[in-house]
């Protein structure tokens, strides 16, 4: 057990080191994430002005901007750029052999590498995030109660795991189809629209919102933001956390299963 923890810690450290190699690209990528905030503020100001109402589906302009900032934070946890496509490339180009030959588990390795990348990202982005939230503090109605904040933190951590295992499972499809870029594009579109990253899901018709609530997508952005803003409370909040946890466990199982099946297929047909 100790030896395994030591291995994980070493992988984690090396992944952090690797992340810090290309400093310029990394710093630019981190800072560029904040640019869309300005356009979003202008966009929603224009939307509310043309609608001529103070609220849309219970959201004021301030609520929408606050919601947008929170989804940005949630996506910083749940988005996994390059994970599925990287895995697909490794399978296509045969680099995956390393994990068949060496005594190391592919999924644990990818999870550690991603955790390391995220930790480095948070360390660098904490300053800019804090500054942006400070500058936009008037859009928020103060801090939520402690129990809501804790639920928010739990939903964020679950969104990281859900995002990781969902994306890794998509990558595993490459064991069956060598070219998966179109599939990944469709997957990205689904996330884009149904995670609530574009707009609060309350803006959708009730029926569709209730359907989407049972899919994994809202838990990548909408749900943590809605928890923080107090849009979901009490039993609805608990139900949301249960659904999020269930999807996370579901994708953990699916990811492992598809890796094992993929290995069998790879070793049977290709290599």
């Amino acid at each position, binding site marked *: 057990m100790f*030896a395994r923890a*030591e*291995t994980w810690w*070493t*992988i984690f450290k*090396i992944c952090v*080191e*690797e992340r810090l*190699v*290309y400093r310029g690209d990394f710093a630019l990528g981190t800072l560029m994430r904040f640019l869309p905030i300005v356009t979003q503020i202008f966009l929603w100001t224009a939307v509310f002005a043309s609608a001529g109402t103070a609220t849309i589906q219970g959201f004021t302009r301030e609520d929408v901007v606050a919601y947008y900032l929170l989804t940005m934070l949630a996506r910083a946890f749940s988005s996994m750029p390059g994970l599925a496509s990287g895995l697909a490339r490794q399978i296509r180009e*045969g*680099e995956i*052999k*390393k994990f*068949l*030959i*060496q*005594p*190391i588990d592919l999924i644990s390795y990818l999870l550690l590498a991603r955790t390391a990348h995220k930790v480095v990202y948070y360390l660098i982005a904490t300053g800019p995030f804090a500054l942006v939230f400070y500058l936009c503090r008037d859009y928020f109605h103060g801090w939520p109660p402690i129990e809501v904040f804790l639920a928010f933190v739990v939903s964020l951590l679950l969104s990281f795991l859900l995002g990781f295992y969902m994306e890794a499972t998509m990558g595993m499809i490459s064991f069956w189809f060598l070219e998966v870029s179109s599939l990944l594009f469709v997957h990205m579109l689904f996330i884009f629209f149904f995670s609530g990253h574009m707009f609060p899901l309350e803006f959708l018709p009730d029926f569709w919102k209730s359907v989407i609530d049972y899919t994994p997508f809202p838990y990548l952005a909408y749900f943590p933001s809605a928890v923080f803003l107090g849009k979901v409370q009490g039993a609805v909040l608990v139900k949301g956390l249960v659904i999020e946890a269930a999807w996370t466990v579901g994708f953990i199982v699916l990811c492992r299963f598809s890796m094992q099946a993929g290995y*069998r297929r*790879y*070793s*049977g*047909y*290709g*290599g």
Partner: protein
Amino acid sequence: MNAIEIRQLEKSYRVYQKNEGLWASVQSLFHRDYREVAALKPLDLDVAQGEFVAFLGPNGAGKTTTLKLLSGVISPSGGEARVLGHTPWLRENEYRRRFALVMGQKNQLWWDLPAQESFLLHQKIYRIPPDQFARTRDELCDLLEMQHLLGRPVRELSLGERMKMELTAALLHSPEVLFLDEPTIGLDVIAQHNIQKFLKHYQQERKITVLLTSHYMKDVAALCRRVVIIARGQLVYDGSLEGIIDRFSGHKVLSLLFANGRMPGDLSRYGEVLEIVEPKARLRVARSEIARVLSAVLANHTLEDISVEDPPLEEVIAEMFSLSAKEEVVASG
């Protein structure tokens, strides 16, 4: 005791068969034809502990397929194999800690980081005790003369330097069986020689079992006493390097140096003329004819020097490979 035991091991793939042209491409959207290709036909082979065996064959002969089977990357379509008592494709961690596979065309190190970081990772993955790790790493680095390169990112290393790092990484956990797939591919002569020297020394010191595939006969001649040749997925030869010439070459090369610079006009009556640079000539003569030709040449001409040699190994093997390719065409046609 055998380190590797292979019994009737075979592997076939289902390959998509596409016809030429746009219409065929449209048709393939609805219906695809597949064909079974035997990458390895039932193979039997034993390799004793501590042997250094070369695995030769033309491209597509099944060499890499065999190495992939023995390292557990792929599962067979039939047959059995035991390496150090383990079935490779079960991929038990206990087995994975006892062998290593180095592929000349694949990089296993972290591209953007110095190799020492990859070594550290290998230490943890293979659970190598710290003192043993430091000792092995330093020993390998000294042997390969690359201490000064350890801190340099892998992407900045030359191909030869990178191969040294790959070998070090593969040997850190002191594997008992080493599979080498074209380890010197693309390297210049000096780098090739250094890798050969290292492999020879290391194998003799540690008595590990090595299976090597290479297209460079110099690798094979420098390292292996035993040569296994497969062609079209089948074993065609298993024996010594010298034995290949005896078995597969029906010719010898006769080198003649004529006295006083006098070259006779018609040499083709003795055999096939390979080269003439006056006053020297090289002839290809059938083995069965060599005694008769020698006495005729000596009787008819004044010579300063004469020698009878085996043809170069590359030539014999190339001849053999092209023969097997022709047989394949005949068999499939």
